[in-house]
């Protein structure tokens, strides 16, 4: 008998291989693979309609997959089962809560479904709703309700938490608050699978990011080094006073909209020479910037066009560059 690699055997919390799912003629998920280690915060980053929610809902047991292998905490989520459900926590993209119970009553109600719940007071504190514990759900703000969503998902003290677009529609301060909650979970050693279409969210929260577009994973890695952006060439740009030309032999320098711009793999040496020249000559380098592709640049390159598989090709440098 052939030995198959299961998530349990490899010690992964989640193991997905060749997952596919179609709705009619639409291939929502077109063959994706990824693994999430125990205790890792993993983000699926992609535009709306990329297949994030379909993927997550297959892992949560809401959808049947068409093909591929999925192992979640050693179980096939397609078979459901209370045993798996008692070890995971789910924050769906949009779900209702009974409006007439209070925050602590709601959490207590859900706690009762689980074999080893986390104490209600602890959960309330973890999501920062202590001041609202006796408030009815109907009176909570949108951000507070989302925290309650997370609290409900934490009620059973799950090992693995699914967060499907936890901050969509939030104002900036509510997003910051939600991020702190997720950071707290990571500190507790929970495994987290997060979907988002916010680059900064993935960057701030995730240990690893997979960029998903048109049902495929087009890049995967730590947010800082995704698609090789840590190794990418730096772009230097500045504006010189009228009539001044740099005497230096700058690599590939060109003039763009009044700015002098060039790329270099060795910014330290080149900048040293450039700045030395500017100081000696008493020339100001107006608007001086040194940039590498941001996560957003990489993301836009990878998901741009959204025509499908071809997005997997590394985009040529020089497209979609932006300062951070």
């Amino acid at each position, binding site marked *: 008998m052939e030995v198959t690699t299961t998530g349990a055997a490899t010690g992964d919390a989640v193991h997905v291989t060749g997952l596919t799912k179609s709705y009619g003629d639409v291939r929502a998920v077109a063959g994706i693979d990824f693994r999430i280690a125990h205790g890792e915060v993993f983000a699926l980053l992609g535009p709306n309609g990329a297949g994030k929610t379909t993927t997550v809902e297959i892992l*949560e*047991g*809401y959808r049947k997959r068409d093909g591929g292998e999925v192992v979640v905490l050693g179980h096939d989520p397609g078979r459901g089962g*209370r*045993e798996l*459900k*008692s070890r*995971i926590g*789910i924050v*769906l993209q*949009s*779900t*209702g*809560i*009974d409006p*007439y*119970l209070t925050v602590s*009553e709601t959490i207590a*109600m*859900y706690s*009762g*479904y*689980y*074999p080893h719940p986390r104490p209600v007071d602890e959960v309330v504190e973890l999501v920062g709703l202590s001041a609202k514990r006796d408030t*009815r759900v109907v009176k909570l703000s949108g951000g507070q309700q989302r925290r309650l969503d997370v609290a*409900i998902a934490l009620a*059973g003290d799950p090992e693995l938490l699914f967060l499907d677009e936890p901050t969509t529609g939030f104002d900036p301060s509510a997003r910051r608050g939600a991020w702190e909650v997720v950071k707290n979970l990571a500190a507790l050693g929970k495994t987290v699978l997060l979907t988002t279409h916010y680059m900064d969210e993935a960057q701030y929260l995730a240990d690893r990011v997979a960029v998903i577009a048109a049902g495929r994973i087009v890049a995967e890695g730590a947010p800082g080094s995704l698609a090789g952006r840590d190794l990418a060439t730096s772009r230097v740009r500045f504006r010189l006073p009228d009539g001044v030309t740099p005497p230096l032999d700058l690599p590939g320098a060109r003039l763009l909209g009044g700015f002098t711009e060039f790329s270099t793999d060795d910014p330290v040496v080149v900048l040293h020479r450039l700045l030395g020249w500017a100081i000696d000559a008493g020339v100001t380098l107006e608007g001086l910037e040194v940039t590498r592709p941001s996560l957003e640049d990489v993301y836009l390159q990878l998901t741009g066009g959204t025509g499908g598989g071809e997005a997997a090709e590394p985009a040529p440098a020089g497209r979609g560059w932006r300062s951070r």
Partner: protein
Amino acid sequence: MNGPALTLRQVRYTNKAFWRNPASAFFTFAFPLMFLVIFTALLGNGTVVIGGRAISQTTYYVAAMASFSVITACYTNIAISVTFQRDSGVLKRTRGTPLPGSAYLGARVLHAMLVALLLVVLTTAFGRAFYDAAVPSGGPLLRSVVMLVVGAASFCALGLAMSAAIPNAEASPALVNATVLPLLFLSGIFVPLGDDAPDWIIWVGRVFPVKHFADGMQAAFLGTTFHWSDVLVVAVWGLAGLLLATRFFSWEPRR
């Protein structure tokens, strides 16, 4: 916790939430009493002949409104509220927890049945106090309790089945009323049906469960004959509802 314990625990939360929506709770209880007052004021002076006996329409309406309150609390309320919970995502969230679906829905059904029982007691007490209606006791009481329990459970099952047929929450009150209002009229709930009712109406009453249920409830109040076949027909409808609900019930919004 095992299934029954989880169900009972869930009944308590369902009950808590029910009473915290005062408008909804008030009208659930006020409706049957309000209709009782209106109908007896409009039509309460006459008599209706059932099984060859002349019965005061006031007494008739006490029994009819008791039946009406059970149908409202079970069929109408379950169909509408479960559809709203489905569309707001409460059901989907519950589905992602280890709570068995049967415990969650079972709790809603049990709660609706308790509300129905309370409504029948209230309507009877109201009828006794203001309309001199007879309060059943002994054998007739026991038989009508059987009818009440079987009827309440069956109308809940039909409500769950109905929710599976409702495409979205906004449409649910209209669709639910479209299915139940004609039957309430044709089954002698709102307008007394005696021995002289037209044939086709009598046939509608024989096919659908509302008239059988009302007859079973009436027997205790009016002293008419109790037929176990009425209980059987209602139970068969309830069973059919349960099967349809099991097969077609949806835990997620139909979008």
